[in-house]
């Protein structure tokens, strides 16, 4: 069994007043349901990828929310888009859409056609 999803993180502080939250705002616009997230961690607990590796989707979107974008794109590559987290989320956050949009905002890409 994978370890349970709530290990104790190191204490650290983020100065929100100095942080660039523009990407987060962009994300909220694309996925309005993310406004409702209460950080419960249900998504992480159900995550398919987490059964194999230490990928933590709640932590990842929470970092994004706080403007800490380092390494997130690499992290998000671990997600298989299976959709379990979306089905489990008690607040109806569209997590698959959230993940796709986070990746697109971070890599500054969009669909390619033609």
């Amino acid at each position: 069994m994978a370890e349970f999803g709530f290990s104790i993180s190191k204490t650290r502080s983020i100065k929100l007043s100095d942080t660039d939250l523009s990407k987060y705002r962009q994300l909220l616009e694309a996925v309005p349901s993310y406004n409702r997230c209460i950080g419960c961690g249900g998504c992480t607990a159900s995550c398919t990828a987490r059964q194999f590796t230490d990928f933590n989707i709640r932590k990842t979107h929470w970092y994004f929310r706080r403007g800490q974008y380092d390494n997130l794109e690499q992290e998000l590559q671990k997600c298989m888009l299976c959709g379990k987290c979306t089905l489990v989320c008690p607040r109806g956050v569209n997590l698959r859409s959230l993940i796709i949009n986070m990746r697109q905002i971070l890599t500054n890409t969009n669909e390619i056609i033609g």
Partner: protein
Amino acid sequence: MENFSPFVLPFVLGSIGLLIICVYKYVRWIRQFDRLQHKTLLKNIFSIKFLPAIGEMFRECLLHVRISKKNWRLGYMHRSIAFGWFLLILVGAIESRIGTKGNFHYWVAIFYRYFHQVPPENHTAWVFTQLMDLLLLYVLSGIFLALVKKIKSNLLGMKRATKHTLMDKAIRISLWGIFPLRLLCESVSARLYHNGGFLTQTIGDLFSTNVASFLEMPLWTLYSIDLCVFFLLLPFTRYMHIFTEVFLIYFRKVGLREHTKMTGFTKFELSSCSRCGMCIDACPLYKDLGITDVQSVYLLRNLRNLEHHKDIIAAGKNCLMCHRCAEDCPVNIDLMNIRRISRDKGDLDITNAYKYLFKVKSFNAIGRVAYFGGCMSHLTPSITESMQTIFRAVGQKYWYMDEDRSICCGRPLAQQGFNQQASKLRRKVTDLIINSGAKMLITSCPICYTSFKKEYKLPIPVMHHTEYIDKLLKKGILKVNKSDLKVTYHDPCELGRGCGIYKEPRNVLKAVANLMKTQNEKENSLCCGMNLGNTVISLEQQTIIRNTALDNLTAPNPDIIATACPMCKKAFKHGTNANVKDIAEIVADHLVP
């Protein structure tokens, strides 16, 4: 020159222009086929697979059989214009060939009544004259219906007609002008030369000779110009479908298919859409949510012109992938794949993706069946438990391959255009299955099932659990009691429309309970709204779609609502107090102890 008049020039120029543009486009698209498509085409180009295509071209491009089956009024409209016009050209060509005795230019067939200025000289000529009038009347009836449809689409059984672009509207006016103009031209000439049939002669006789001779040249000129306008606009508008569908049918018959990227074949598909709008009426996003700009017809149109890039992306994303439009499309365009192409994320760097899966080891499952629950089934453990009960009941040794850790089948990624990532997962899962030595793969999730069936190339049989249970029941290996519970069955999109599995789940349900009919079932079943295809609509909107589907299922007042998909089960469970169960659970409840 005999049989020539300057007024034919616009027509001649227009038709030559049309030919050149079409040949240019088609050659370009064929060159844009990808390697596999080229190979398939070259291999089969002269094979006899081509023969059935002729029948289909006749049925679909001219008679419009598939539209007629869904909506006979619309079918009549399309048929009378397409088939009527075709016959008008064909019969006209034969008539003029006989009539001109060798002095034949191809425009004579179109303007025959102008050049052949004598009354029918014998019986054959008379029959031809009447026949041509009859055909003209047939086409005109279609044009009349098209006008009615424009004004009030529901008279032709359509809730919503396609919103057309300016160009499409312009060419439509020219098309609608062609046949009334032809009627007038021929009537006026009939007045002057008495060469008309029952229709044109009667109308012609209403004119005085003076008026007729005054109108004759302007009318024929106008007719010729109108044809020219229609021909020259055609390659740039939806009417390109008239010729393109013929090619598409041929290509499909020789085995060409849509791939994950836009190719020349996609271009043929895009241009085969007649924008009939049947896909709009089918779409739950329109029916339940009133969204009217994302349906296949609009996606295809924008993709075809590769303009409105933002709209393409937005429309591409907002789709449930429920297959309802694809089911109703009379041209059978591979709409689900085109939707995926519009979502293509391109070549991202995937060297590091899913590295963590390397260490996952296979299991020695020689002689066993492999059971793949799928990610979603992990949220509905009663389904996987029931399947294990069934395996044990028939003494089947099995390997529950994703019992405590599941690898996703890759389809959710592929549906969102992450094609490389998806194929990486597919490679891993394929290795696990092949290395295990299992003799068969059974899955409980229609999404995984579609993936294994269509996207994997597995050397062993793949079955959905409903197929498997049906087989066990047929062979008499599995014994069940029939109860008198009433059930309704929900066809999951991917299992039903996607893979054509309608019979097996019903057989199983009939063996354990009383299956009741619902209003919308089989090909016509409704989407549960939770489909992984859509990442745009909100939970509230999904709920509205789900409720429509639930209303359909609860209407006959069943004891149990049965489904065959963990996702549908979860969707319905939250929306009703009624008992929602997967077929596997119902069977497990009815096993003979």
